[in-house]
C-alpha cells in the first residue's frame, strides 16, 4: 500500500511489519509467564501469595488468551495479512484479550473465595495489569497506523468502555478485594468522587478566568510578559505538598480575621488552600498556551485583517481566537489532567477527594484501599484527557484540520 508507505517512512523490514505491536506482545507474554496474575491473601492486611496465570485461569480461558496471542503475533508480520487487515484484526483481538483478562480475574476471585475463609482476599497481580495495559497500547497504535478519524475512534472507545462497564455491572468483580473495599466505603466513595470533581472544577474555572486574559496580556504587552512568566514559573517550581502547607498559615489567619470568610469555608485546612494551590499550578500552562496560541497566529493574517478594515475586536474574535483555540485547549487538557492528579495530594490538608482513600490505605497498609483511590483517579485522568483531546481536534478550524 503505497499511501501508507508515505505515512510511515520508517517502515520495518520485510519480515516484521509492526515492531510496536511485536514489542507489546512480547512484553505481555513475558509478563504473563514471569509475574503473578493474581494474589491470594488470608486477610486484607496480609500481603498475598502470587498466583500464576495458568493456575488462576481455567484452561479454556488461558488457552483462548494464547490463541488470541498467536493471531496477534501473525498481525505483527508482513505476511500473511495485508497491513490494513492486520490493524483491524488487532482492533478486534486486543479488546477481546482485555475483556478476557478482566473476566478471568473476576471469575478466579469468585471461584477461589467460595471455599475460603470470609476474610480471605483476592487482588490483581502485575501480570493482570500488563494484560490490561498492553491491549490498550495496541489499540492506540493500531488507530494511529490506520489514521482513523475522530468519529471512528470515539465510537470504538465508547463501545469498549460500555463493555467494561457491563462487566462491572454484571457483578463479576464483586469478589475482588478492591471491590470489597468499595463495598465497605460505598457511601463515602460517591461523596469523595464528587468532591474530587468539584475541587478540580473550582480550581479550573477561576484559573481559566484569570489565565486567558493574562495569556492575551502576555501576547499584547512584551513588557508584562517577562515578569508574568517569571512569577508563574516560580509557582510551578514549589513542590505541591510544600505549597499546600505554605497556604495553611495565612489562610487560617485570614479566616480568623474575617468571620464572613470563615463562614464561606475559608480556613487553614480544607478546600480553600487546595483550590488556591490548584489555581496557582494551573495558571502557568493556561497562560503559556494562551500566549503561544495567540503568538502562533501569523502576523500577515492579522495585517490582512487590519487592512481589510476589521476592528480590533473583530480581529480578536473572528481571527485570533479561532486560530489560537486548539493551542489554548491543549493547555486546558494539560491542566485538567494535572489538577486531577494534584487533587489527590490535597487530601493531606483535609480537602477530601479520592486521595483520602489513598492516604487512609497507606496509613492502614491496606493496598486495596489505596487502589480504590488510585484506579478511579487514573481512570478520571484518562477519560478527561480523551475528551479534551476530542475537543482540541474539533476546535481545529476546518481549513487546518
Amino acid at each position: 500500500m503505497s499511501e501508507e508507505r508515505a505515512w510511515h517512512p520508517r517502515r520495518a523490514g520485510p519480515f516484521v511489519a509492526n515492531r510496536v505491536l511485536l514489542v507489546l506482545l512480547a512484553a505481555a507474554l513475558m509478563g504473563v509467564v514471569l509475574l503473578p496474575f493474581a494474589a491470594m491473601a488470608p486477610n486484607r492486611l496480609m500481603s498475598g501469595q502470587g498466583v500464576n496465570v495458568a493456575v488462576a485461569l481455567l484452561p479454556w480461558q488461558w488457552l483462548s488468551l494464547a490463541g488470541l496471542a498467536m493471531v496477534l503475533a501473525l498481525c505483527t508480520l508482513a505476511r500473511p495479512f495485508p497491513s490494513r487487515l492486520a490493524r483491524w484484526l488487532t482492533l478486534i483481538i486486543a479488546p477481546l484479550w482485555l475483556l478476557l483478562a478482566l473476566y478471568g480475574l473476576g471469575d478466579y476471585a469468585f471461584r477461589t473465595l467460595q471455599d475460603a475463609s470470609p476474610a480471605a482476599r483476592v487482588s490483581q497481580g502485575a501480570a493482570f495489569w500488563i494484560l490490561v495495559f498492553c491491549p490498550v497500547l495496541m489499540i492506540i497504535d493500531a488507530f494511529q497506523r490506520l489514521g482513523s478519524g475522530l468519529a471512528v475512534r470515539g465510537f470504538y472507545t465508547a463501545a469498549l468502555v460500555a463493555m467494561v462497564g457491563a462487566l462491572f455491572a454484571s457483578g463479576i468483580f464483586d469478589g475482588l478485594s478492591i471491590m470489597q473495599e468499595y463495598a465497605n466505603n460505598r457511601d463515602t466513595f460517591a461523596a469523595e468522587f464528587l468532591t474530587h470533581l468539584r475541587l478540580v472544577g473550582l480550581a479550573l474555572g477561576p484559573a481559566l478566568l484569570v489565565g486567558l486574559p493574562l495569556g492575551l496580556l502576555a501576547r499584547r504587552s512584551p513588557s508584562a510578559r517577562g515578569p508574568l512568566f517569571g512569577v508563574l514559573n516560580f509557582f510551578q517550581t514549589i513542590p505541591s505538598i510544600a505549597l499546600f502547607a505554605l497556604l495553611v498559615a495565612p489562610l487560617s489567619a485570614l479566616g480568623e480575621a474575617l468571620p464572613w470568610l470563615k463562614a464561606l469555608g475559608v480556613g487553614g485546612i480544607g478546600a480553600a488552600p487546595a483550590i488556591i494551590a490548584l489555581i496557582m499550578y494551573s495558571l502557568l500552562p493556561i497562560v503559556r498556551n494562551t500566549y503561544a496560541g495567540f503568538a502562533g497566529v501569523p502576523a500577515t493574517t492579522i495585517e490582512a485583517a487590519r487592512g481589510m478594515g476589521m476592528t480590533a475586536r473583530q480581529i480578536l474574535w473572528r481571527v485570533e481566537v479561532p486560530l489560537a483555540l486548539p493551542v489554548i485547549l491543549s493547555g486546558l487538557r494539560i491542566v485538567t489532567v494535572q489538577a486531577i492528579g494534584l487533587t489527590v495530594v490535597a487530601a493531606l490538608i483535609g480537602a477530601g477527594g479520592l486521595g483520602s482513600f489513598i492516604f487512609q490505605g497507606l496509613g492502614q497498609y491496606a493496598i486495596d484501599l489505596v487502589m480504590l483511590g488510585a484506579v478511579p483517579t487514573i481512570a478520571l485522568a484518562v477519560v478527561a484527557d480523551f475528551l479534551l483531546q476530542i475537543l482540541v481536534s474539533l476546535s481545529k478550524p476546518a481549513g487546518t484540520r
Partner: protein
Amino acid sequence: MIELQGLTKIYGDKTVVDDISLRVDSGEFGVLIGPSGCGKSTTLRMINRLIPATHGRILLGDDDVTQLPVEQLRRRIGYAIQSIGLFPHWSVAENIAVVPGLLKWPKSRIDERVDELMGLFHLDVGELRDKYPHQLSGGQAQRVGVARALAADPEVLLMDEPFGAVDPLTREVLQDELLRVHQHTRKTIVFVTHDMDEALKLASRIALLNTGRLVQYDRPIELLTRPADDFVRSFIGKADLGLKLLSRRWVHQYQQHATLQGSPAASTQAGYTWEVDATGRPTCLHGGRLHAEDRQQHTEVTQEWSATPDMTMKEALSRMVWFRVMVLPVIDGEGRLIGEVTMHGVMGQQPCA
C-alpha cells in the same frame, strides 16, 4: 485618485519616508519601486493608515484619509499583500466575502459578487468555492488574495509585492491577469515591487524611491529614456536596457504591410512573400531567412511563430531570434494576416520615440 502631499514618516531619529509628493490619477496603475528599505512599503501602508504618517497629507478622491474613521477608510481601499494573508480557517468564498460582510451587504449580493470575482480570475467556482487556503496552489491563493481585495468594489487597490512569493511562470500569468482585470475595472492601483521588469510591464506610472526620497515619478518609457540621475540609470540596469525598452513597445507600433505571394509587388520587394488561405490566414512564409542557403526557405506559420498587435516588441524579437527568421506575421483575433514586423523594422526605428 490618490494624492500624497509631503508625506513623511520618522521613526525616532530615522526618516524612513522623506517628503514624498505624487499623484496617481483615477484608473492609473502606479508602481512604487526601489531597493529594500527605500520606504516603498511604508509609503503604501500609510495610505490605508496601517502606519500613521508623521507629516503630510494623503487625499483619496476629495477626502483627507486622516479625517475618515480608520476602519471605514480601509473598507474603501482594497489591500493585497505578498504572503497573501488569507484567513486559514475560512473557505475561499468566505475569504473573498470578508469586506462585503463587514459592510453588511445582503447575503445574496455577497454570493453573487464572490462568483463574479472568481469568474473574473478564472477560479473554478464549483471546484474551489469551498476549498480552504492550504488546499490551493500558490497561484490560486494569490488570485483569491487579489479577488478579496477587489470584493467590495473599492475605489483604490493597494498591492504590496503581491506576486513576490510565486514562481516566475505563475507570476507572469498573474501579471497578465492583473493587467486584464485593470483594463476591465479601471481601478486606481498603487503597486509596490522591487522588480523592474514587473514595474515596466504593469505600470502606467513608476515612482522610483531611494532612501525614503522620491527620485523620479514618470511614465515607464521616460524613466528608461530620460533617467533623472545616475541612481535611476543604475537601478534600471544598463545591460538589457534595449530589451527593457522593447518591453514597453508594442507590435502595432512596428507593424508593416505584408506582401502576399502572387501579388504584383512580390517580385520587387524584400525577397520574401506570405502565402495565405481563402480566409486570409497566413499558412507559410517563403524566404525571410538570413542566409539564402538555409535549406528550409519556407516557414510554417504557427501559434508560436506569429505575433499579435498587443504583444510587446521584446517578445516579438525573442520569437524572431528563436525561429531564426527575420520577419514575423502579425495576425488579428480571427487569425488573419494583417501585417508583419521585421528585424529591419526593429533596428530602423528609434525605440525612444
